[in-house]
């Protein structure tokens, strides 16, 4: 039995408007080489000019991950040849990264019990993304698209504190949640805005030193992180069991085969010849700068969870669902501002809204209605201005049309008027049409009340609430006793 020792390097693209060293758009996609300029394509004579917001976002991420911020930070060049790197060096940070010594709590299960474990963050530094290579098998060439060159990236490096694939998954989920809350990264792994390298070795419980590690590059889904780690544990265990030695190398995970393979092309000497980037001056922060950035950080998920459970009395399960995405939690908070009934709002979000989101009818990122409209709808249902069932229908219409709930209710006759005159009229009609049954009730057969109630509500659907019907029906019957 071996203990896996795992460290992660997470690369997260920052949500700035422009690239980190030039003014080209930092948006995802675009026609090939259409978001390029002489700077990000590494033309002779060009110079990098650092983006203020990229630095600010990296520091924000640092605060979200409980880091210390270096008040003096230096950029360095990491030199290596690769066709996706036009300057043949990546501007990164070596000895003076922006953030150091952080920690991220995750929940892990030990003997069926959930406990909290802290994963230490060694550093977060700011660097630039590389371009993309498209492999044209037909012509036997690769095509380089540099749109992604210079998108700001932070690299989050952990200490080797992770001990299983599940912990790795929990950590990545937690980090992406925190980055989304901080508003610095959208963490869309499928679009590559969050990517992960895994350093993994295994050791016997009696060993005092870590084993030789392999690095698995560029994992771009939670599933592949888990599978790659599980595969590596098996592979390395097999080697050690057979008396062999694990080779320190870079490996690539193959999603189709579920295995990792040594990357021969990256075997070139790993001598990156780092040195201070002479084109970029060192960045300093005043205490005021740092306080201002910290102040821009929203309330983080832990705090919100605490508020939701302790202050609002929500269940831990519900609170967890609400904070699991910043958009949901923000929506919830927004709705409360209009209608301060946390339990009602929470349950309508979780049961009704998220059901539609999960069905793919709508996404939390671009709801066609506001949290205010949603709150009004919940309040209408609670105050029985519409029936619970109609409230669900109204939500469906809101999703489809973006109209406000009052308008939809009015247009579709969902509004409950509780017009007692009309109710009395209907009740009287029902009673006179069912004289025999009324007799039965008067003689003590209570169960026929349900039939009379049903007859009334059938005719009064949408006019008033069942409670009103019931009250009036009871009153009338009692008066006949």
């Amino acid at each position: 039995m071996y203990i896996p020792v795992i460290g992660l390097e997470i690369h997260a693209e920052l949500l700035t408007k422009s690239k980190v060293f030039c003014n080209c758009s930092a948006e995802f996609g675009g026609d090939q080489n259409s978001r390029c300029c002489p700077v990000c394509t590494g033309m002779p004579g060009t110079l990098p000019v650092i983006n203020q917001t990229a630095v600010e976002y990296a520091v924000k991420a640092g605060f979200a991950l409980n880091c210390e911020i270096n008040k003096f930070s230096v950029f360095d060049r990491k030199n290596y040849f690769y066709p996706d790197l036009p300057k043949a060096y990546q501007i990164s940070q070596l000895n003076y990264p922006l953030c150091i010594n952080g920690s991220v709590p995750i929940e892990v299960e030990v003997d069926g019990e959930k406990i909290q474990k802290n994963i230490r963050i060694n550093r977060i530094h700011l660097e630039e993304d590389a371009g993309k290579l498209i492999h044209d098998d037909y012509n036997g060439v690769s095509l380089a698209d540099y749109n992604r060159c210079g998108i700001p990236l932070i690299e989050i490096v952990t200490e080797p504190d992770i001990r299983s694939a599940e912990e790795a998954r929990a950590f990545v989920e937690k980090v992406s949640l925190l980055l989304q809350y901080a508003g610095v990264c959208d963490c869309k792994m499928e679009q590559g805005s969050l990517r992960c390298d895994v350093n993994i070795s295994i050791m016997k419980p009696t060993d005092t030193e870590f084993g030789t590690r392999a690095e698995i590059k560029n994992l771009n889904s939670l599933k592949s992180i888990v599978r790659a780690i599980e595969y590596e544990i098996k592979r390395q265990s097999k080697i050690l069991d057979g008396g062999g030695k694990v080779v320190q190398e870079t490996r690539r995970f193959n999603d189709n085969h579920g295995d990792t393979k040594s990357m021969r092309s990256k075997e070139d000497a790993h001598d990156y010849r780092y040195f201070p980037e002479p084109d970029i001056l060192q960045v300093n922060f005043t205490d005021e700068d740092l306080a201002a950035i910290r102040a821009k950080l929203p309330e983080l998920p832990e705090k919100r969870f605490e508020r939701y459970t302790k202050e609002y009395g929500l269940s831990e399960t519900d609170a967890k669902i609400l904070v699991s995405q910043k958009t949901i939690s923000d929506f919830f908070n927004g709705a409360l501002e209009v209608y301060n009934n946390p339990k009602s709002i929470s349950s309508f979000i979780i049961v009704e809204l998220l059901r539609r989101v999960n069905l793919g009818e709508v996404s939390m990122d671009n709801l066609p209605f506001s949290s205010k409209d949603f709150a009004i709808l919940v309040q209408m249902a609670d105050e029985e201005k519409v029936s619970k069932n109609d409230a669900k229908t109204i939500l469906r219409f809101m999703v489809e049309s973006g109209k406000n709930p009052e308008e939809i209710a009015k247009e579709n006759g969902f509004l409950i008027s509780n017009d007692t005159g009309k109710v009395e009229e209907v009740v009287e009609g029902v009673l006179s049409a069912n004289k025999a049954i009324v007799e039965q009730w008067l003689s003590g057969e209570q169960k026929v009340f349900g039939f009379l109630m049903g007859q009334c509500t059938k005719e009064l659907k949408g006019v008033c609430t069942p409670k009103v019907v019931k009250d009036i029906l009871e009153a009338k019957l009692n008066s006949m006793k």
Partner: protein
Amino acid sequence: MDVSQLKIRQLREMLDKKEISAAELADEYIKRIKEYDKKLESYITVTEEIAKEQAKAAQERINSGSSSALTGIPIAIKDNICTEGVKTTCASKMLENFVPPYNATVIEKLYSENIVMLGKTSMDEFAMGGSTQTSAFAKTKNPYDLNRVPGGSSGGSAACVSAGLAPAALGSDTGGSIRQPAAFCGVTGLKPTYGRVSRYGLVAFASSLDQIGPIARDAHDCALVLNAISGCDSRDGTSSRLAAENFAAKIGMPVKGMKIAVPKEFYADGIDAVVRDSVLSAAQKYKEMGAEIVECSMPSLKYAVAAYYLISSAEASSNLSRYDGIKYGHRSSKGDSYSELVCNSRSEGFGEEVKRRILLGNYALSSGYYDAYYGKAMALKQKIRAEYEEIFKLCDVILTPTAPSVAYGINENVTDPVKMYQADICTVTVNIASLPAISTTCGYDSKGMPIGMSIIGKHFDEATIIQVADAFEKNFEIIPPRIV
């Protein structure tokens, strides 16, 4: 009309008084280039058509009465400064056909003054060298003796100004590349304070040391060009935020009472006697003008060449890695894999000296050697800076020879890199300490070869070194090269 010895100020007056049109003036220089540059080889590209167009635009501005200091003035540009639509080769086979899609900031600034660009001047390949003999296209000769080098790396710019094939030119200076060729060719060259002029569009050699500056007939003309090209640039994060100023402002003010330091190490054994005597007699002239000569010392000078070559080569090895044959520049016809294509393109495209510097730079940065070489060189850089600070507590400017000798014969030195490197002893500390310095002619040797002296100033005090150089020039008679 003989324009060969005319200064920018004289040309300005002629243009404004309509004694000559901008087109006629451009023509005069183009004619001279056609007549003399076959022998001199100072230009790599002559931009005759562009010059004609620009002269037309300049004339319109002159006619409208809104000309600025350089409107209609013909200027040559070193071929490592990017010019949109005009080949920028760095005198390297690697960039033989490179046409930049953008203009350097200095080019934009000069164009906005409506200058007339005559062409792109030769240089040592990627500005690495002091002879212009490593140029892949035009091994420029010295106008004073065609068998001698013009110096380098801005040899084309210095030679063309010296021979009257341009009234002024832009050069670049990483370790002396403006001042030393200016000294060899008997003209005036100014290396501004690091950060004074934007480097955006200057093909990088050593980013922490490179600086663009003017080469002209005298210090006053240098000031006029510097006025036009200096200033903070949002595209260069290392450019200084100091407001632009008039660098000619102190010209004519007396040097009386000024303190001029002569650090003894700059006058030691490695310096030819004729050079030393000439610079010291210039010091004597300043004394006669009322300046005080202050003796001082720079103990770390003996390490300066090593520190300079380690830092500049380290940065160069990284800066030149981008030349892979993929995005621009020479692409080998051989090579089936990325790595092979890159190796072949680079091996075919770069000359011997460039390759040497790349090897040296990678050595200085490679793991296991970094601390001993690059790290130590950076520490020495700080020490040399500190020593300058000490000296400047005692003086206003520092006077040194610009080069240990006058221009040497073609093929001398060039084959021995060590000898070549050591010849940079007088100039490299200025770049290491980011200081401004100006080289002007202070004498001629027995064969008539010019001797240069350098006046080094405090950070961002170009106005004072221009003033001091100008004070000397006013009492010194230039002997034009015989080629004229």
